[in-house]
């Protein structure tokens, strides 16, 4: 049969284009996947490492520890608690900041939102002022997000020394950005009908925002905050790899001492905590969506009006689990702030100022540094003056030496990782989605055999567990382990990113399919199609645009992650960031970080454009 030329347009073209992009980025990264020294046997080491998965250690593997040393499990518990504490502190800083940013980045509350005829000059002026403010907030949001928490942490720890609050603030900054972005999107995506009804009956836009738009967004904002807390736990653990005393530090130390059993114990502990929070979030979402219902209606007819109103209010349906959970969360935040190791640094003020002064000096581009490391603000500005040309030469030199290549590698790593993850998720979805992997998909009568039923439920459960496990471990940890096993090439980073994102895409795409209207796929199943046929023929094409939406969202985060994974010694941007950091060349470090920021901004604009286009198409269809 002749295939018409149009066959390769549309969705098929997109898929082929992604495969092409994968090939190109693979070519950029080079063919060598395993890069160990000549005599090394990667398979023996891998065997030893994965063998240890089945026998995690419950005690120290180091035989030469003094007898009064703190036992391994106790240390693990402490470091888990610290991981938890820093994540909580960070989230408690990020949520208020994210709320403020999200509010300011949304235009729904602006005055003059329901004008009649021409707007007055004053209103127009106010609105353009607010537009400026909104752009400023969006810039802050993207800036916060575009620098990875690890990089923020490097800066803060260099400037302030080893104070936990520095790590917490470093975590909080990108999280505030992400929360702000998502909060503003959630607010804007709520149904506009209640808001416009209130405004049609005389409410001001701010009132309509507070009384209609915000309350309807609160459940989703809450569940998203729980999800971000889960991410904060992972990031808090990863901060251990640069020396903050969280679970990551232990993983790194045990791995470098080749105590693989200890590594696995700590990995399992981290996974259990993360999966626990994930489950809590899912429960919370379910309860918030359902809402509490009244168990019994009190007898009202015999009571007078005020009494019956009071009775109704006393017996109002309330979800005590949700309320208790929220209260417990707030209590935990308070405990985190007030208990445990001192958060600030114990250093006299003049010593601290000197330290920050030295840091600022080293942060200034080398040609424009002030003579004196404790220079004041005006002196620094003076030193900067007239050095534009030299700074430019300095930057061009860095760019041509390493910058350009590192940038290309970073983008190639992120892109091949996300395409691989997307491929994996697309292939696993028919057996992993709740919609298909069950005995009777869409309620259509299936095989009479119980075994078939159990088989599909089992396969679905296992695949979803794989997704959960894949996303529970941070990509940095995967990358650290894989670089150790495969040697320093770009591919371990690609695999690490791909594995983590496979878990995330699997979940997000699975949810898209579950939320799809069942009529079309049910019709396929009813007319005799198998699960895979129904997936390829109806579910996947129906969900395609939403799949792409999440794909680009994850691609953006992959770029951010790829810049820092280089810190493990592979020539992406992070490599030069960490080298510059080790040599205390903070100016060069800043240069590479800003390169990363530029890529993320570009990616942000591109994927934003893509998403808006796709969202338009979704709205039309």
């Amino acid at each position, binding site marked *: 049969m002749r295939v018409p030329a149009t066959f390769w347009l549309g969705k098929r073209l997109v898929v082929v284009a992604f495969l092409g992009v994968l090939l190109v980025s693979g070519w950029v990264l080079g063919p060598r996947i395993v890069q160990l020294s000549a005599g090394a046997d990667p398979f023996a080491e891998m065997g030893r490492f994965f063998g240890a998965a089945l026998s995690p250690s419950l005690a120290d593997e180091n035989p030469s520890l003094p007898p009064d040393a703190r036992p391994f499990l106790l240390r693990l518990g402490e470091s888990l608690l610290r991981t938890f504490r820093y994540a909580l502190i960070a989230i408690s800083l990020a949520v208020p900041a994210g709320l403020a940013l999200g509010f300011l980045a949304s235009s729904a509350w602006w*005055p*003059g939102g*329901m*004008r*009649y*005829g021409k707007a*007055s000059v004053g*209103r127009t002026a106010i609105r353009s002022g607010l537009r400026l403010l909104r752009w400023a907030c969006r810039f802050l949001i993207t800036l916060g997000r575009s620098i990875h928490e690890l990089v923020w942490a490097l800066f803060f720890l260099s400037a302030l020394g080893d104070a936990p609050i520095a790590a917490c603030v470093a975590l909080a900054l990108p999280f505030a950005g992400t929360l702000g972005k998502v909060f503003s999107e959630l607010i804007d995506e709520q*149904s506009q*009908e*209640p808001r*416009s*009804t*209130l*405004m*049609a*009956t*005389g*409410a*001001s836009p*701010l*009132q*309509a925002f*507070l*009384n*209609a738009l915000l*309350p*309807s967004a*609160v*459940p989703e904002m809450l569940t998203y905050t729980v999800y971000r807390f889960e991410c904060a736990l992972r990031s808090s653990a990863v901060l251990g790899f640069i020396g903050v005393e969280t679970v990551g530090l232990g993983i790194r130390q045990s791995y470098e001492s080749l105590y693989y059993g200890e590594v696995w114990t700590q990995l399992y502990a981290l996974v259990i905590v993360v999966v626990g929070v994930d489950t809590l979030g899912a429960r919370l979402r379910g309860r*918030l969506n359902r*809402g*509490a*219902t*009244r168990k019994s*209606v*009190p007898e*009202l007819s015999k009571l007078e*009006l*005020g009494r*019956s*109103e009071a009775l*109704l*209010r006393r*017996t*109002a*349906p309330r979800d005590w689990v949700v309320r208790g959970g929220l209260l417990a969360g707030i209590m935990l935040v308070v405990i985190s702030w007030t208990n445990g190791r001192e958060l600030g640094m114990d250093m006299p003020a003049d010593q601290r100022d000197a330290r920050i002064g030295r840091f600022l000096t080293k942060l200034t581009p080398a040609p424009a540094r002030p003579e004196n490391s404790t220079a004041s603000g005006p002196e620094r500005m003076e030193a900067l003056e007239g050095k534009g040309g030299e700074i430019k030469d300095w930057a061009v030199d860095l760019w041509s030496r390493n910058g350009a290549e590192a940038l290309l590698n970073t983008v190639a790593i992120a892109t091949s990782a996300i395409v691989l993850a997307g491929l994996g998720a697309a292939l696993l979805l028919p057996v992993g989605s709740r919609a298909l992997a069950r005995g009777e998909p869409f309620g259509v009568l299936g095989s009479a055999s119980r075994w078939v039923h159990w088989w599909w439920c089992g396969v679905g459960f296992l695949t979803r567990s794989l997704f959960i496990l894949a996303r529970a471990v941070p990509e940095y940890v995967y990358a650290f382990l894989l670089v150790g096993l495969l040697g320093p090439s770009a591919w371990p980073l690609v695999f690490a990113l791909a594995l983590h994102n496979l878990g995330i895409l699997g979940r997000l795409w699975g949810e898209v399919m579950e939320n799809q209207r069942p009529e079309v796929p049910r019709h396929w199943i009813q007319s005799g199609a198998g699960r895979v046929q129904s997936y390829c023929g109806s579910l996947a094409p129906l969900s395609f645009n939403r799949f792409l939406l999440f794909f680009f969202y994850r691609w953006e985060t992959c770029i951010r992650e790829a810049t820092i994974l280089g810190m493990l010694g592979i020539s992406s941007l992070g490599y030069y960031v960490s080298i510059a950091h080790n040599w205390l060349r903070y100016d060069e470090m800043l240069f590479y970080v800003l390169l990363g920021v530029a890529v993320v901004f570009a990616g942000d604009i591109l994927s934003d454009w893509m998403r808006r286009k796709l969202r338009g198409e979704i709205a039309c269809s």
Partner: protein
Amino acid sequence: METMFELSETHKSFGAVHALSSINLQIAKGERVALIGASGSGKTTLLRLLGAQLAPDRGEVRVLSCNPLGLGEGKLRELRSRLGYLPQDLGIVPNLRVLQNVAAGRCGRRSVLGSLRDLILPAVGVRRRIYELLERVGIEEKMYDRVDTLSGGQQQRVAVARALFQEPAVLLADEPVSAVDPARARDVLELLTRLSAEEGLTLVVSMHQLDLAREFFPRLVGLKHGKVHFDGASSELGSEALSALFQLGDKVADS
């Protein structure tokens, strides 16, 4: 008789689409009017013009004997706070309680802080008034339930109670019976006409069910292609005028 609405030679278009052209219409205080017409005939646009939500392109609209075009934002909000509006999708917040949704009805007369207070927990007196209102629409036992746990008919009553709590001079309802079964449609219209008679409200309802419109509304305004096709007492209208209303003209068949 006091005139509530007065439209003279009013035009409204959205881009190239002429939603309404040369509309002349007067509605007096206390009247009950049904706007009838096929979908796309301009019913919703007309309602929104009456509600001072849209400005006309040409011609004049007078709402409660003032021209909204000349008003500043504060005056405009005051005017709108006297116009009850029941949109087709009800416009209630699904995850809030009935009480909070009803209390939001008087936002137009409250400060920002006052409306925040209403959102959290209104004062005792306000709560009693809301309870009474809910009794009148028949869902008082649902006062503290989340709206999305209510049935569709009950949700519609929440929206009606919110509009009444606003203490408006008129009630504009956009297709309140388009998505309900005949028995419930009768229920809703009975409720609306009874309450507006009790409160002395002017009631303007858009709908496309002719039989129900004739039964409940003394005056019918038929719209066709954005023009007033007929306007008169429902008892006087002949069946040929009515049947012409829903005949598909060439214009519609093309689009």
